């Protein structure tokens, strides 16, 4: 099928950037979205033009690299699906697709669709861990964890750090990402001792990085490729209030 593309091109962080249009005739419906972009790039290279830069690695929806905004929606039209898992069978012959980087002040554009998400790493560094030295861990089965607690913790632990939540939020808030980590660690017995310290440190780091506040638009939950629930944001608020006062 034929697909018309409007893609954001930006040389570097300082460049202003703008949209460029491309027409791609040899799109197969079984291709993944990123394979479609690979094909576009092969054409551009052969024509002596510069290929479109975008981030990816696993192409299985697990590494969190590939977030891009497709027709106004982070990771594209399909619920619970990362951009790399999206297939061209979701589009029709002749469709126009607009592709942009996830935009947020805290995620500067590096080139084209590639952005700098290192702010997320600094939020984790501020407290998104359990302080346990290598070699000092007790026997694993000494701390039983109720199955339900373990399962819920797991659900929150699956955040892939893609930043779609930030891109989708009108305030560019990183609340869903931060809250997911807190809801994972704070509810496990292993994470309890550092709970207060962790919550305060991560929330404050998030603010320092220039992410906006959460005002309950819930756009984040709608685009999250792994289905992190906004219930975590409520938990985060409660823990924060409890920790501070």
């Amino acid at each position, binding site marked *: 099928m034929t697909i018309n593309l409007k893609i954001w091109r930006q*040389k*570097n962080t300082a460049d202003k950037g703008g949209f460029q249009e491309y027409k791609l005739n040899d799109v*197969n419906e*079984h291709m993944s979205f990123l*394979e479609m972009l*690979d*094909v576009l790039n*092969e054409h*551009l*290279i*052969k024509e*002596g033009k*510069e*290929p479109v*830069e975008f*981030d990816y*690695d*696993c*192409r*299985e*929806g*697990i*590494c*969190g*690299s590939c977030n891009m905004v497709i027709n106004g929606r982070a990771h594209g039209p399909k619920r619970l*699906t990362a951009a790399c*898992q999206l*297939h061209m069978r979701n589009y029709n012959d002749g469709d126009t697709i607009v592709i942009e980087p996830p935009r947020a002040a805290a995620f500067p554009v*590096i080139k084209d669709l*590639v952005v*700098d*998400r*290192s702010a*997320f*790493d*600094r939020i*984790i*560094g501020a407290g*998104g*861990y*359990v302080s*346990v030295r*290598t*070699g000092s*861990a007790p*026997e*694993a*089965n000494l*701390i*039983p964890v109720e*199955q339900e607690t*373990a399962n819920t*913790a*797991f659900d929150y*632990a*699956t955040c*892939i*750090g893609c930043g779609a939540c930030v891109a989708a939020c009108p305030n560019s808030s990183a609340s869903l990402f931060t809250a997911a980590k807190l809801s994972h*660690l704070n509810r496990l017995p*292993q994470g309890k001792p550092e709970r207060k310290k962790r919550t305060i440190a991560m929330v404050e780091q998030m603010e320092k990085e220039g992410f906006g506040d959460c005002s309950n638009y819930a756009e984040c939950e709608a685009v999250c490729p792994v289905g992190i629930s906004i219930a975590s944001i409520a938990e985060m608020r409660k823990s924060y209030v409890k920790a501070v006062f």
Partner: protein
Amino acid sequence: MNLDSKVPSGPLEEKWSNYLRDIKLVSPNNKRKHKIIVVGTGLAGASAAASLAELGYNVETFCIQDSARRAHSIAAQGGINAAKNYQNDGDSVWRLFYDTIKGGDYRSREANVYRLAENSNNIIDQAVAQGVPFGREYGGLLDNRSFGGAQVSRTFYSRGQTGQQLLLGAYQAMMRMVDAGKIKDNPRHEMLDLVVVDGKARGIITRNLIDGTINRFEADAVVLCTGGYGNVFYLSTNAKNSNVTAAWRCHKRGAAFANPCFVQIHPTCIPVSGDYQSKLTLMSESLRNDGRVWVPRKKGDDRHPNDIPEEERFYYLEERYPSFGNLVPRDVASRNAKMVTDDGLGVGDTGLAVYLDFRDAIKRDGEDAIRARYGNLFDMYQNITDENPYKQPMKIFPAVHYTMGGLWVDYNLMSNIPGLFVAGEANFSDHGANRLGASALMQGLSDGYFIIPYTIGNYIADADLEEVSTEHKSFGEAASASQKQLDKLLSVKGDKTVIEFHRELGKIMWDSVGISRSKEGLENAIEKIRALREEFWQNVRVPGEANYYNKYLEFAARVADFFELAELMAIDALDRDESCGCHLRDEFQTEEGEALRNDEEYSFVSAWEYLGVNGKLETKLHKEDLEFEFVELKQRSYK
């Protein structure tokens, strides 16, 4: 070339504890004065970096991705082994050791494998303490599942995302040390060369992938944790950025490359469907716990699988291997899939697929139970293939998955270049000619958390390390060589893209250095690889420039290294006149079509020395003989 394995003497059970008793320590005050570079932040690298920083060393890490959390380890699905014996089914450190040695077809070092089994239990403790949410039973204790190649249930898992959860644990431990100022983290940096001064590894050359600058970093030791080289085949289950460059450049600086031809082909992947395809997706081996593998008995039977009656289905694994059935190890399952498709029994449009069927499991346990066990994998399958595996069997086929070969290391995980340590998939140790499921994660974390931190101390305490600055001529020479190579790639301006070359190389490799190999095929492949490599340097087209973000330039440099490695893989496969594990030479099989080892002549690690590339790869074979003191070598049987 000195290939002293440095395995401590004494009984197997006491080697590691005796070693730890005798190693030299670096005092806390002095650790602060030492700097260690860790390249790669997957399971091996992140765990090593965190542990070394906790000990007090100054650590500097590098990775290609924008964050350590995205290393290829994140994608591991099925699980991680440990000899906890929580199931009370007779597991023990000895049994895990034995299964691993046997699974590797007796081509690994006993002492290393025993240590791996010993460390396995600590890994689970460590991960649980970090808050890694493993699967649990109703009573709140940890649950296990079984995996190919073992008759006990010893695999710990986090649904289908075990690698993700383990990596996040190690990454979080690492970020904690970054925040504490003990680790300097450099994402989006690619190591392009190793700097050797006075025969010791003293630093690396990197390219900053954002601005293209070539940078120099010095250290007292370098730990390479850069993963495997399966992407030499172009299509594989590996993440797209996995590559051999760091290891290969170390090889060119003198590090021996061991057992390059040992490549694991995973039996349960989603089959290839078209030319545009960029990678293959693994369906976890744990699916074979409940899924039954079959093909139609009749050639060309194109009925819908659900319409093929029981007696016309050929459950070839269950028939041929009654005691292991669908849970035979990967090499056996892959080879059998190839055999049935070679016999014309394959299914799907290409004929290159077999069925993995859950019908009976769903009948037995109900759809909900199967959904709870494998739901995310089923969704992934449906998403990619547009078929519902609850309603009809999955189609699967083998794909390149893991590389057992890598840089040669001794018992300290140090290469033959002093000060260059290698951990995780990047080294050759522990898995022999084949890797059992759920053991790569175990090895990466054992290396990173529990081995490297001690053996590096032992090295540093002893080594005579003079101050070296990045102004040293070895740094200058390596930096300009890296720059020159990039400039050369950009200057060719030919008409074929990097991807086209890579795909062609991959096809040669899959056809001749894949599931099975033959003398003739390998000799042929070597000629073709050489010719294609020559063409690459004459006719590749790399867009853009070197001084900014340029992914295709990165690829070009990696594919250039794959071309050289590919030749070495074929040479190694040709040299090994036997079949072992995943290395099946058509000429060496038992009457029943099983791999036929030749222990008399090939019970060694092949360690290759790089001598240059001039139209052809110049290389020299060194052998580390493997001695088996504690296990008896047997024909591997899963009947």
